[in-house]
């Protein structure tokens, strides 16, 4: 169907509007992060700063060692920001470990749903679906009390265990329907060749399900990277914070100005944004499968 010129122009205009809305916060953060506090305060009506600077990033990434022009007057930098490299390492290791654990546990359970057709496992799957709706705060209050008794507060492992449990139900929902599409005959052929049932799962079903594993893995990584509430409640020492917790700790800090905050936000969002744009296809498939085939 050919579209008239007017229709096409209207569609372009609508697209530009949506694109502007999508990019607006990121543009604001970037412009804010690339100027000094002085220039933000000097003119409160101009969009672009009189001069650009990378000083915010220099100060943060050097842990406050390099002071730069933005700190001519004030040299205050909160402890959490000075130790932001801890937060970065914690965020990476927590998100990676959670991804690996959920992939392993999720695949095992999904296989029993897709192949062994056990009635109680189907039941488990339905329970999982309900469990997805339990608000994190409900679980976090008792987990805080329990982890406090177990000495798991202020540790990477407390956060990893909690996040893994919370993200596992998605795994069964995304992986089981995909495993079911792998032809049964391939597994049976492997078993005739001497593979055990579990061996056939490892060597046949799992490798053929890479797209679903990638979908689920990417989504888990993003959610674990972005999560705030769990590490916020469990970890309050700078050495065990993740990037979102460091950001949250700046909220009530009146001495940290917007330019520095925006730079920290950009550091926290860059890895996940790049990952999502690179693995777009898998994220799209995972999100639609998780909600529709569930």
């Amino acid at each position: 169907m050919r579209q008239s010129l007017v229709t096409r122009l209207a569609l372009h205009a609508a697209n530009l509007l949506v694109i502007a809305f999508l990019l607006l916060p990121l543009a604001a953060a970037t412009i804010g992060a690339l100027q000094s506090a002085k220039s933000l305060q000097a003119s409160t009506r101009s969009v672009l700063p009189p001069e650009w600077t990378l000083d915010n990033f220099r100060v943060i990434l050097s842990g406050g060692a390099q002071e730069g022009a933005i700190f001519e007057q004030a040299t205050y930098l909160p402890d959490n920001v000075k130790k932001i490299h801890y937060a970065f390492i914690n965020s990476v290791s927590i998100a990676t470990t959670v991804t690996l654990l959920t992939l392993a546990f999720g695949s095992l359970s999904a296989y029993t749903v897709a192949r062994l057709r056990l009635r109680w496992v189907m039941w488990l799957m339905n329970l999982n679906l309900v469990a997805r709706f339990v608000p994190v705060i409900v679980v976090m209050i008792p987990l805080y009390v329990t982890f406090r008794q177990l000495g798991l507060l202020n540790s990477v492992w407390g956060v990893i265990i909690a996040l893994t449990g919370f993200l596992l139900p998605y795994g069964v929902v995304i992986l089981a329907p995909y495993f079911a599409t792998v032809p049964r005959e391939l597994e049976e052929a492997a078993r005739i060749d001497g593979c055990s049932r579990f061996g056939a799962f490892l060597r046949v079903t799992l490798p053929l399900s890479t797209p679903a594993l990638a979908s689920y893995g990417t989504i888990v990584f993003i959610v674990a990277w972005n999560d705030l509430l769990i590490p916020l409640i469990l970890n309050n020492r700078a050495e065990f914070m993740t990037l979102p917790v460091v950001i949250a700790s700046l909220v009530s800090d009146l001495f940290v100005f917007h330019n520095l905050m925006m730079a920290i936000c950009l550091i926290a969002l860059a890895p996940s944004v790049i990952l999502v744009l690179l693995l777009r296809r898998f994220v799209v498939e995972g999100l639609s499968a998780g909600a529709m085939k569930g």
Partner: protein
Amino acid sequence: MPAAPKRRGRAELSAGKLGVVMNLPTLATLALVLAYPIGYAAYLSFHKVTPAELRRGVFPSVGLGNYQRILSDPLFLLALKNTLVFTAVTVVVELALAIAIALLIDQRQVWTSRVTRFLILLPYAVPPIANGLIWSFMYNFDFGFLNRLLFSAGLIAKPVNWIGDPNTALFALTVPYIWRTLPFAVLLVHAALQGINPELYEAASVDGAGAFTRFRHITLPLLVPILVVILVLRTSFAFVVFEEVLAITQGGPGDATWVAVWYSYKRSFAPPFDVGIGAASAYVLALIIGALALAYVTIIYRRIE
């Protein structure tokens, strides 16, 4: 950490036993992180749990006392009301926007639609707390980016106090939340659009149906199932909004933006550190969402059958 099942020599496990073994890691994790805490939360909600009790490790029972206290606490009722308003606004706006944007990015022959389709996932990747902080910079009265933009465009003469006004603060919170969660809804609608048979549209065109009639009588009815799924999912997620509140308003101005999770969080992890009250309020929230989840599972079940 439970170990993965190993092959023991030549012996093969029966399907039933293998099923149990393969589900052990998941069951153990879910028991520790979901089942046990959900039960323990119920226990805590009937007991007095403040720092003094936490130190002693003894939680005296208060019966329904915590529930009586929150249900007679005007702040809790306000938080529930704010949550309802917030949820209603975000869900309605998101459903409408999701349909519109999904139709827009479905226009493959328009090159700007392909750009939108590439960028639509972007907000999904942004950490909610970073999103909140960025919007608090945008909304800032003195130095904010939004006022700067509107000044430069000549649309305002005085700075607008976006989040300082108790009448508008809650609505100001909906925009960042919609920005962050819209991609999910758009993706689902867009995926459902791919499933509609193009011959339906061609037949309707031959019969002389215009674009709006085709949308009204073909697209919309076929989208209803996925719209219901989005409605339930988005409602239950909007009920637990937290990060944007923490970053942008911290419940203020006054108590204009106290929402349910903010109430549970503040009661448990800020003075007076009353974990029992926090657990009871979180449980009320969970029951409301549980009813929604039940509806969701019923719908999903019908789709699988």
